[in-house]
């Protein structure tokens, strides 16, 4: 009989968690409660004595100073409604895992198979609510029905002797392992049905390719010799579907695109990826010649560039959109710990140094009915932030840079970008650390977590209902501590030279990781039955493609195997020998000695047919709105500062540890009160050196509504602008692109596919043009191409969005510059040219307009300015520097002033323009490549000398009076506001989130 241990706070101890839940129920659901208290429940399903359970309850499970524990009886009293929320069977329960280990330490005995500890939380609600309201609170706020289940009891219904009835969420109903075979000798219609019903996501052409493969007599003969029929096994079909998936093969970026531009010129583009992304990098590297700092691009889990003679930098950014839409917490957590594995699993292994995160959400204050199955953006916001918080903080990795972009179309699919950087020695045991190669005969070793049904077929909005007793497959929850232990182990194993290659297990699970590693040798022999499972009952194909987290695959030479496994054991990390890498030319899987998959490596990896996608660019007919000049520009400015895309994100930033590892030199929050918005982060990865790395990003989806070409150009410029603002070296910087698109393939579902595909082409063209012009190589990237919501007739497509992340170097972090003004009488300069470019701006959006004059980038012009800025920074001439982006000059002036705690007096007539501009355009135009700099007066001549002959305009000075005062033509006062008021407007919107 399982035990239930309930732990609660003693009388009189403040329940901070309960108070927060009460406040959030009010905010989320508008339900007012008198009080909420919380209790922790551990359901212990194991062979233990009364004394042992009591020792656990009163030992590791309970803090004797503030808590009390009860075994098999309730602690709940003085409530109206009790809601207990626990996990569904098979969902990762990190606390349960730790609780189980704690009992093992206590008793000195290990749990038997099938024994476990499961956690749940009781919420004791007091207030005038009925069960139906409680159901709403449980379903819409406390729990996520996909991964959790709940029990609701009124005070009368709770058994005073026994408490809430025991229910153990153990996975039950184990099926005997079987391997099915699937005949592809069927009609086209049936082929498509096989793909659809099996969630294989293969199109007809791809299915026919499989059909032809098995129909080939040569294939048949070889299969026959292996004891296989002409029908593919489910293991083979799943392996092919994973390997050929959009996610793994990037079929849209690899497609042939038949592109017609606005003038009717037709162009056949053979792979956007090869043409524009790989093409740009090749060109940039060629142009750099001996200065080329790229070490490993596009071929590994992350890109690698040179940091200095002894160290290399690793950088990768991923998206985790669909999982985050389903379960924001688990999705985001998995996103961050997943990208961490990419960083660690690059080359022979690297040490993580920081994370970045960028989210795109609908407004958390969205006040309209949502289509079916969409979570409210407020829940998405809370869950994602908490997931990234746990993922980063618990892993000991500082989150140093990020942003949140709001657009209500992201209600259809939130975008969750998680980035990570790592550092590796340039050489390891005499060889470049960024290179690795599996050798024939190496053992396939899987380390870290066990395999469950987690994430099989990725997270899809499938219509299948999840039912009691069936493990959740759609959602995964990360486990940062298991992963951290694995990383600690792998670092030691790396330095001792115990393996030849490694990679992470992400999408596609073993199928992808072993499939890719086996390309080095040309084959593998993988014994699926040897893989450690979380619970029995997995089918061989499920073992192969499970996306269970916290796993890495390694190639361990036979002579090192014992040492490797012994070290793992000592460090409490699971490691299992699953077979060997071979040169057979075949991807060979066995289960209990029987062959269950035998696929030609060449066919597996190169067999996928190339898609052909039509694209036609027809620019939209847009015009400028012709707004009347507002009477009160002070009011316009404070209104802009309070817009979600501009306002302070401090409440989120503070929840991330941005300083662990003691390397963060320019923090996300800067200025006199530590609350100004930094442009970029400067990080010192080596504690005994002042060399630093700089990271920043650009993202501007609002411009996509006008032209994705300029959206892309602006994102690149914004990323670089932020980067140079803090002192990043413009000659040692790499880029990383993450495309998030709506489905660009013309079909009944997507009648505007040709337009969306053309938008994609144009963004890629800009990517090539500007990376080459700026001399910035791309080192890695990712695309996520199906960010649409479609149920019934409702379709929501996200605006095409590219996150352009940059990473580079600063010679000496002591030369880094922050954005806040430093002292009165400093001179304020505006670098760059201001144009009538309000199209897609925050100012227009505030007035419900789009416009058409989207900002355009002149890369040569910008590059010259950035180089000069670097020179001025190196000479110590720059007191502060802030980039101009959303909200233009007005917002930048305000932020710079209130962050520094001083006023600024500025004269708009000094601003460099290419044509006469109205005051509102001068203030709020989002023209690119502009920076606002303050300079100590004694350095004026030196500073101006660096910028001689450029658009460097002295527009004002820093004042002591704490006001932002902006004048226009004839000395007319346009803005006169107290900086405290501006700051208040900027801080208010998201302060309480």
């Amino acid at each position, binding site marked *: 009989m399982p035990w239930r241990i309930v732990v609660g706070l003693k009388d009189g*101890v403040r329940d901070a968690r309960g108070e927060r839940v009460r406040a959030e129920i009010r905010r989320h659901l508008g339900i007012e409660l008198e009080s909420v208290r919380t209790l922790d429940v551990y359901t212990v399903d194991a062979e233990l004595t009364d004394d042992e359970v009591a020792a656990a309850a009163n030992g590791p499970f309970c803090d004797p*100073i503030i808590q009390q524990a009860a075994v098999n009886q309730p602690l709940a009293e003085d409530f109206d409604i009790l809601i207990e929320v626990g996990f569904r069977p098979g969902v990762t329960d990190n606390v349960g895992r730790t609780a189980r280990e704690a009992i093992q330490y206590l008793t000195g005995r290990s749990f038997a198979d099938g024994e476990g500890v499961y956690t749940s939380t009781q919420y004791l609600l007091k207030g005038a609510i009925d069960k139906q309201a409680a159901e709403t609170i449980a379903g819409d706020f406390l729990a996520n029905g996909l991964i959790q289940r709940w029990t609701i009891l009124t005070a009368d219904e709770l058994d005073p002797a026994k408490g809430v009835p025991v229910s153990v969420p153990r996975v039950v109903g184990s099926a005997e392992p079987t391997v099915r075979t699937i005949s592809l000798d069927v009609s086209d219609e049936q082929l498509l049905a096989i793909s659809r019903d099996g969630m294989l996501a293969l199109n007809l052409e791809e299915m026919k390719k499989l059909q032809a493969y098995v129909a080939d007599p040569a294939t048949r003969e070889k299969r026959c010799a292996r004891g296989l029929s002409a029908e593919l096994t489910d293991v083979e079909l799943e392996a092919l579907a994973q390997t050929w998936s959009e996610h793994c093969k990037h079929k849209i970026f690899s497609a042939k695109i038949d592109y017609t531009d606005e003038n009717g010129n037709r162009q056949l583009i053979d792979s956007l990826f090869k043409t524009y992304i790989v093409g740009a990098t090749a060109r940039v590297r060629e142009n750099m010649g001996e200065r080329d700092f790229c070490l490993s691009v596009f071929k590994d889990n992350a890109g690698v560039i040179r940091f200095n003679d002894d160290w290399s930098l690793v950088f990768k950014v991923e998206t985790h959109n669909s999982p985050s839409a389903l379960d924001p917490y688990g999705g985001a957590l998995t996103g961050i710990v997943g990208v961490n594995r990419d960083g660690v699993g690059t080359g022979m292994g690297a040490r993580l140094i920081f994370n970045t995160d960028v989210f795109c959400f609908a407004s958390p204050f969205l006040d309209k009915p949502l289509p079916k199955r969409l979570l409210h953006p407020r829940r998405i916001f809370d869950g994602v932030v908490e997931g990234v918080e746990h993922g980063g903080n618990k892993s*000991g990795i500082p989150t140093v840079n990020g942003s949140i972009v709001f657009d209500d179309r992201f209600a259809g699919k939130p975008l969750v970008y998680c980035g990570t950087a790592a550092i590796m020695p340039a050489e390891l045991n005499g060889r470049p650390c960024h290179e690795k190669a599996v050798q024939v005969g190496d053992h396939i070793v899987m380390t870290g977590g066990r395999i469950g049904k987690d994430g099989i077929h990725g997270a899809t909005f499938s219509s299948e209902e999840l039912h009691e007793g069936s493990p959740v497959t759609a959602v995964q929850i990360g486990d940062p501590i298991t992963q951290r232990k694995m990383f600690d182990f792998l670092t030691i194993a790396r330095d001792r030279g115990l393996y030849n290659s490694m990679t992470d297990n992400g999408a596609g699970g073993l199928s992808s990781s072993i499939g890719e590693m086996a390309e080095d040798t040309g084959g593998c022999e993988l014994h699926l039955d040897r893989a450690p499972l979380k619970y029995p009952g997995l089918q061989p194909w499920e073992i192969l493609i499970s996306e269970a987290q916290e796993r890495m695959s390694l190639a361990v030479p036979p002579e090192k195997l014992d040492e490797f496994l012994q070290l793992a054991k*000592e460090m409490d990390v699971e490691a299992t020998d699953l077979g060997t890498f071979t040169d057979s030319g075949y991807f060979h899987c066995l289960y209990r000695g029987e062959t269950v998959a035998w696929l030609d490596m060449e066919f597996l990896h190169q067999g996928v047919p190339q898609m052909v996608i039509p694209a036609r660019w027809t620019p939209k007919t847009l015009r400028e709105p012709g707004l009347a000049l507002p009477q009160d520009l002070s009011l316009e400015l404070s209104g802009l500062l309070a817009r979600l895309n501009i306002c302070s994100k401090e409440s989120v930033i503070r*929840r991330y540890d941005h300083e662990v590892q003691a390397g963060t030199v320019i923090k996300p929050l800067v200025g006199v009160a530590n609350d100004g918005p930094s442009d970029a982060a400067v990080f010192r990865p080596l504690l005994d050196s002042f060399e630093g790395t700089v990271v920043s990003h650009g993202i501007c989806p609002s411009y996509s509504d006008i032209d994705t070409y300029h959206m892309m150009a602006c994102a690149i410029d914004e990323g670089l602008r932020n980067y140079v603002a803090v002192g990043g070296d413009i000659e040692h910087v790499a880029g990383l692109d993450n495309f998030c698109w709506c489905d660009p393939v013309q079909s009944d579902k997507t009648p505007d596919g040709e337009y969306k595909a053309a938008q994609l082409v144009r963004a890629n063209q800009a990517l090539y043009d500007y990376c080459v012009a700026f001399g910035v190589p791309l080192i890695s990237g990712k695309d996520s191409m199906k960010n649409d919501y479609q149920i019934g007739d409702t379709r929501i497509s996200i605006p095409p969005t590219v996150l352009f992340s940059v990473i580079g170097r600063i010679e000496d972090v002591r030369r880094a510059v922050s954005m*806040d003004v430093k002292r009165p009488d400093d001179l304020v300069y505006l670098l760059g040219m201001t144009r009538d470019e309000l199209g897609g701006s925050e100012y227009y959006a505030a007035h419900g307009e789009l416009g058409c004059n989207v900002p355009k980038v002149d890369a040569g012009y910008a590059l010259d300015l950035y180089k000069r800025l670097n020179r001025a920074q190196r000479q110590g001439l720059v007191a502060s520097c802030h980039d101009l982006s959303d909200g233009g000059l007005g917002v930048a002036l305000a932020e710079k002033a209130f962050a520094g705690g001083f006023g600024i007096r500025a004269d708009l007539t000094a601003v460099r323009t290419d044509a006469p501009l109205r005051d509102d355009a001068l203030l709020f135009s989002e023209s690119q490549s502009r920076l606002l700099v303050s300079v100590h007066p004694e350095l004026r001549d030196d500073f101006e000398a660096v910028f001689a002959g450029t658009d460097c305009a002295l527009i004002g000075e820093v004042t002591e009076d704490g006001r932002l005062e902006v004048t226009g033509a004839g000395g007319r006062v346009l803005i006169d506001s107290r900086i405290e008021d501006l700051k208040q407007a900027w801080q208010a919107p998201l302060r309480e989130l």
Partner: protein
Amino acid sequence: MAKEIRAIVIAGNGTNCEREVAHACRLAGAEVADIVHIAELLAGRVRLDDYHFLNLAGGFLDGDDLGSAKAGANRLLHARVADSEEHLADQLQRFVADGKLVMGVCNGFQLMVKMGLLPALDGNYQQQTATLTFNDGGRFEDRWTYLAVDPDSPCVYTRGLPGIYLPVRHGEGKFVPGDDALLERIESGHLAPLRYATAAYQPTMTYPENPNGSVAAIAGVCDPSGRLFGLMPHPEAYVHRTHHPRWTREPELPEEGMGLWLYRNAVEFLRSEVV
């Protein structure tokens, strides 16, 4: 030649700050500052007895899944050292009895309090008498705090220091003594050398200067000997000018960060009184 000062920083199972703590020990003059994975201690290959200065660094031991440092404390108390009858906790008690130094930062402080190593009145280093629990705000926060120093504290780490400025980065940092009598003895014995304070270094109960609602604004606690010390703020996070959040606007800041002072005091104490 003076004998060398040997510092150890325990790593593993979710400890995160071991590298910067070891760096701080080195900067402070420790000749040895070893980062040792707990597996090495449990395997018996490394022994605490060979060191003078034990550092329990920040992090999330076992994810803080059962409450901060609870599962970690349970492991130290119950895990055996291989091929011996000894628990790691026995080595630790011997280390304390030998008059050596132990400093716990953040999760390390939580660990010390929950194992009973702090405040450890009446020579009892094995019974928990106080705790660190959820911040009043209910959330993890990263922010810099001013800390007033009690000049009359026996704490060897804060000797002679004026107020200091350090970051906190925690969700469970609210110090709660088991009862009023304990608080009274902490106060009268000057066992709370650090308190959250205003910028003028006056102790405060007001958020955010007091970031978690700690009773009596207590940010750090020592044992009556002053050799065992734990604090929620991170001294290893401020050992150089560029760690300070406003270093770009305060040119008068000294090169050396205020957090380093704590480590220097520790090394000096060891050199003069222990080694």
